[in-house]
């Protein structure tokens, strides 16, 4: 049988990113000396592998396109808003009133679920939603130090996320950590300052100097709430725009598939997975993953093989396959292949039994999205026992055979153009 021809991958029309590195490991000794930590940390939570540290998220996704942000489409760049404005020397997001109220309601639900009664909840919310004055510099422990904000774990999205967003107007400014001094509550609710328009509130105090101490976790975040166009003076606090404290923050977390996590741990040695604060060894990880996902050893063998050929496999559930293969990464090229993993074993179980009907359907889908359907057969040697498979060293004995499936149209016009 002749070999299938290799078609060059199609480049995307516009590429917004620059290619950094194929793997999140240093490529030279100079790089190795520069980076501070070589091992990133992930947690195994409910059979999912999550990376929480924003710096780690950035590196893992930026170099090798591992994982997916749970609040984002692919790249973990979730942020509260697309528009940012400056306030007291830092950037705060601008959100609509409706969104602000939604966040307040989430806060309320959270507090109620903690068991506090309605009265207390309402009071807290009222205090929380007071507008912030830009000029007030008092160090008093304001509302931000209340028990509710200190109870929550706060992980903010990393500063460099902002720089990647193309809509952010302040791309060259560094988003620094919030100052430890808290935005104190206004002295007088009915002061004319509170009634002023949002524009005046958010006017940057250009000479404000931040304190040098880095922000702590319990420092509040601010948002700029857009008021109504027909706002009146003397209306209630919530109806007006202004700078307010962020009532509820959601943090971006990177989720890795089991194959990606095991690859980072085993092949690159740059990730360590913790379960209940306890780090897991490679054999334990292998055992756990095999227990969670049947056929893990075959799909991992395929993943490892494609990574070692410098292609980027991403989960292919959108197109009915196990993986989609990208050259260099999703932002640069369209996926070239849809890979279905199949195991060739003496015990005979098939990962994804095909009938001609389902094969025809999958072939049709794949052709419609201009990709090629590739079957990846993982061949197990006959003498590989079940006991040997409990160790990841059995990977060294597996071999891979790829077969490209294409539909041939028999009508004459096609025959002159196509080649079998």
């Amino acid at each position, binding site marked *: 049988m002749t070999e299938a021809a290799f078609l060059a991958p199609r480049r995307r029309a516009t590429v917004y990113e620059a290619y950094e590195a194929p793997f999140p490991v240093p490529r030279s000794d100079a790089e190795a000396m520069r980076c501070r930590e070589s091992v990133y940390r992930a947690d195994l939570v409910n059979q999912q592998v999550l990376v929480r540290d924003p710096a780690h998220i950035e590196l893992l996704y930026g170099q090798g396109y591992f994982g997916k942000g749970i609040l984002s489409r692919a790249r973990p760049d979730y942020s509260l808003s697309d528009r940012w404005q400056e306030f007291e020397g830092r950037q705060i997001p601008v959100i609509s009133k409706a969104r602000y109220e939604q966040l307040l309601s989430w806060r309320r639900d959270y507090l109620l679920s903690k068991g506090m009664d309605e009265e207390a909840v309402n009071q807290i919310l009222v205090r929380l939603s007071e507008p912030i004055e830009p000029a007030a510099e008092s160090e008093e422990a304001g509302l931000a130090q209340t028990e509710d904000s200190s109870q929550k774990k706060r992980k903010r999205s990393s500063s460099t996320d902002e720089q990647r967003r193309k809509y952010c107007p302040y791309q060259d400014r560094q988003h620094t950590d919030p100052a430890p001094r808290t935005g104190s509550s206004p002295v007088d609710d009915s002061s004319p300052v509170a009634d002023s328009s949002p524009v005046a509130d958010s006017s940057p105090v250009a000479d404000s100097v931040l304190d040098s101490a880095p922000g702590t976790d319990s420092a509040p975040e601010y948002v700029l709430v857009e008021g109504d166009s027909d706002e009146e003076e003397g209306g209630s606090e919530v109806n007006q725009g202004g700078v307010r404290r962020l009532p509820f923050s959601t943090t971006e977390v990177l989720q890795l598939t089991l194959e990606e996590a095991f690859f980072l741990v085993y092949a*690159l040695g740059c990730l360590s997975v913790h379960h209940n604060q306890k780090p897991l060894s490679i054999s334990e990880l292998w055992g756990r993953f095999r227990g969670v996902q049947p056929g893990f050893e075959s799909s991992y063998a395929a993943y490892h093989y494609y990574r070692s050929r410098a292609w980027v496999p991403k989960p292919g559930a959108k197109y009915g396959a196990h993986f989609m293969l990208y050259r260099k990464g999703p932002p640069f090229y369209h996926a070239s292949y849809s890979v279905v993993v199949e195991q060739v074993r003496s015990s005979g179980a098939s990962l994804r039994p095909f009938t001609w009907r389902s094969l025809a359907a999958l072939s049709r889908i794949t052709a419609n999205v201009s990709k090629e359907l590739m079957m990846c057969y993982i061949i197990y040697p006959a003498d590989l026992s079940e006991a040997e498979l409990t160790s990841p060293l059995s990977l060294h004995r597996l071999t891979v055979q790829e077969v490209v499936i294409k539909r041939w149209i028999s009508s004459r016009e096609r025959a002159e153009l196509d080649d079998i």
Partner: protein
Amino acid sequence: MADPSKTDDSERIFSELLSPSELFAARSRSRKLPVRGQKDFYPSGCTQQKQRLQNSLDEHWELVSEERVERLGNLVRGIWNPSDQIVELQSPAGKFWQTMGFSVDGKQCLQPEEALYLMECGNLQVFHRDLPLSIQEGYETFLSSSQLSLQQYQVFGHLKRLGYVVSRFHASSVPSLYERQLNLPPSRDRGANQLKRKRSPSPEATATVASSPRPSEKQEDSTNPSSAQDKATNHSEPSAAQQPIPEGRRPPADDDVTGRNWWSDGLVPPEQQQDGGPSHGGPTSRWDFLSIQFPDLGARDTPGPLAPPDPALLPGAMAVGVCSVSSWLRRLNTWREKQPGGKQRRRREEEEERARRRTGPDREVQGCRSWAEYRRIMERRRKGSRRSDSKPAHLWEKDVTPLHDPRQGTSTAELLEKISVVKPSRWADKSCSVEAVGTWQISFDVHQPAVNTEFRKSSPGMPYSRMCVCSFDGPVPALGELQHVSQQSGDVPVTMAVVDHGDISFYTFKHFLLPCDLPQ
């Protein structure tokens, strides 16, 4: 084929011959095909839709039940031979003889599927026991054998109607490994061709480096045909023009028992293979290409480093070490990527890159302005290189350790080689034992339509593809079965024709090796 208008019993026998008026009516029938209208996607239940459907069904039925009218003189007579399962032609064949049929003992014969196809076209009339077969009888008689099933006939008919030249597959027509190594010209009539020049055996298999036993058995094969051919050329030597035998040729058998090798070791197959070759009245050229091994750097499995050549071949006191070919191999089939953006941007980027290359990729170093600063930076780094994190114990001190230590900087190419633990297998390697071989047989050879290409039945050339017919309700071939079928076919790609009650789809399964994509 009774004419419906004639109900008279006595004229039933002759109703197949048409009267002039009937003939005229038949000839001037409208040749229009029914127009395909818009599809309706769901039954709406209204009468209009039902009426439309009924109309198109009626039209369909009318077309299918149409009588076919043929000139008696156009029909070629054939006789069905059930014992041999072929149809022998009594009258000379028409135009279809260019692409179909075969001769046996001077008689023209057709395969049953070709006969049935021609019957349906209206070119052939087959007689069995002195009675002409109807189409239905044709289907029943020809397709009942184990050699030809209905599905295979449907595929045959489909491809023939599109214009392809379809013939039966014979396993013997696939050249075996031995024949391929002989590299004979593909001629059907032997005996006429006299080799004008002695052909040296194509050293197809001599260059593989893999340590598996297959190359060694290929070596044996290559020495044998070369010896056979040598004998043949010895016979044709007096009549053929030949290369002048150089004066100083010494019999190769004596000194070169081990074979002449450019490389002293490493790529040479075991020596006992070489004894067979040169001792058999050896080749006439000075170089014994059987025993000179050239490494095949384009082979799939990367050969190891080239061993240094035989010091006897090197001039003077030159010492040559082992040559590593991995860097060259990495450059094979790679090309520089085109960056998006205009020419100016590209030029600017190139300049920046050149500037960067002078000082290195290090941003800090690029920024420093004097050697003293540079030294300070390096000093600082060396001090700070005491890593804050040591090797995580839970990874490195257990039984399974990671394949790579991220604290060392490794280039991408080396890293990829390090982690290439799961190896690709070769297509020719049998993955597993083949059990259900019987269901997967190649049925037909398909050649391109004969209109454009010159097609000679005597030398059809390599087929465009080979067909393996299966049913839509059947199983999908597994890897072992695919390998078996492709091995049966040799070099020609195999297409699976999947038949679903007359509807045929074709799928090709081709093996593939994903190229390694090394970033620069």
